[in-house]
């Protein structure tokens, strides 16, 4: 049974093994499978400037093994869209705010892509953001993700036109966080109850989001 673990700076020391496996899998998925060779690292752990104390990870675990995950990052800080992809946003300039996060490095390991792992992670993502009072989450994704989000009941608005990134048509988009999306994705995969696992030692994300850009 897959559960989704929330990991932040407050509890990451308790999950160092999980995070280590997660960074190795990121390397496997994004560098070796997808061919994003700029991210290649000699130690086989894919990490970047946003893997810092401001990041929140939702990590899908099955029988103790990492099978997927995503990273959330405050948009009030310099983030991937503002720094690397501002040209993907129509109005020039990223969508930012205290209740807006950016989602990056979403993946499910290859052998679990035909099952319900995607739905579980997407449901956990909506649930976590609802609980944190998040209103929207921005992301740069390959275009073929849009119909999948749509089918999951996500409300997604494009922030700009599709643009080639690493040879693939990608788009900057904003996902609205709302209850109905959580219900839809849960129903789609016949998911019952919550499988989002949070530690009492993790403070609310909102407390950690700075209210001015650093």
């Amino acid at each position: 049974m897959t559960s989704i673990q929330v990991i932040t700076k407050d509890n990451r020391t308790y999950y160092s093994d999980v995070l280590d496996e997660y960074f190795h899998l990121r390397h496997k998925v994004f560098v070796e499978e997808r061919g994003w060779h700029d991210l290649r690292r000699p130690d086989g752990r894919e990490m970047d400037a946003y893997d810092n104390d401001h990041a929140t990870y939702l990590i899908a675990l099955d029988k103790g093994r990492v099978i997927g995950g995503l990273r959330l990052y405050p948009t009030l800080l310099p983030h991937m869209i503002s720094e690397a992809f501002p040209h993907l946003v129509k109005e020039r300039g990223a969508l930012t705010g205290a209740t807006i996060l950016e989602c990056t490095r979403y993946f499910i390991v290859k052998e679990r892509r035909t099952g319900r792992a995607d739905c579980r992670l997407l449901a956990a993502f909506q649930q976590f953001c609802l609980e944190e009072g998040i209103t929207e989450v921005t992301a740069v994704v390959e275009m073929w993700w849009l119909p999948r989000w749509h089918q999951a009941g996500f409300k997604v608005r494009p922030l700009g036109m599709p643009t080639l990134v690493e040879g693939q048509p990608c788009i900057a988009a904003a996902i609205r966080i709302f209850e109905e999306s959580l219900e839809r994705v849960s129903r789609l995969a016949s998911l019952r109850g919550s499988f989002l696992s949070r530690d009492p030692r993790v403070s609310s994300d909102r407390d950690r989001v700075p209210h001015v850009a650093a």
Partner: protein
Amino acid sequence: MSGRSLDQSTEAFDFIQELDRLATSDEIVDAMERSFARFGFENFIVTGLPHPDQRIETLVLLKKWPLDWYRRYTHNGYDRHDPVIRLCRQTVQPFEWDEAPYNPETNPKGAAIMHGAAEFGMKQGYCLPIHGLNGFEACLSMSGPQLDLTPQTKPALHLMAIYAFERARQILAPSPQPNPLTAREKETLRWAALGKSAADTGEILGVTERTITAHIGSACQKLSAANKTHAVARALQHRLIEI
């Protein structure tokens, strides 16, 4: 050039906003007709891709196709041989029809289908494959005698097609079917999936074998299954039971 591409992004964003206000399939067809005509498109179809035991006409959500061509296409089961449909199943990227390969020797009908379409004015085309969650497959395929497909127009069309598809799906596709099986039927099928006979299952659940047989019969009926094995296979395939 930048003025032109600005037009295209405005066109795409306006179209996406307009879709939200549309409530019927006729309105979507009208809006698509208007907006896609600016790129040279005259015909389009929005359809799910059939499994081997499905007919394509049961999966078509929207269409603006010459009626005679649609009849010929569905009557002859062209979707089994259509190079565009075949490529759809293999790629997540949109493509032009002439990028869909067919080998005249292994797929002689492929050429006939493409030529037939051209006779109805559907000479060039652009197709957006959809690969959703849980194995859902569909496409939006559109065509015309002369298309304006350039590196500038394609991104706009790609985006517009994704949102047109989504609006059509929202309005027309049945929402995920609720599980038709009762709790007892599911339980019975789960035990069957684990190799238990009706007698075994009866003993486990504390009811008679006859009751179990009745549950299985009713599950077979709901799943249009020929027998218990078929019902178990269907229930697993459609994720109605888990083991």
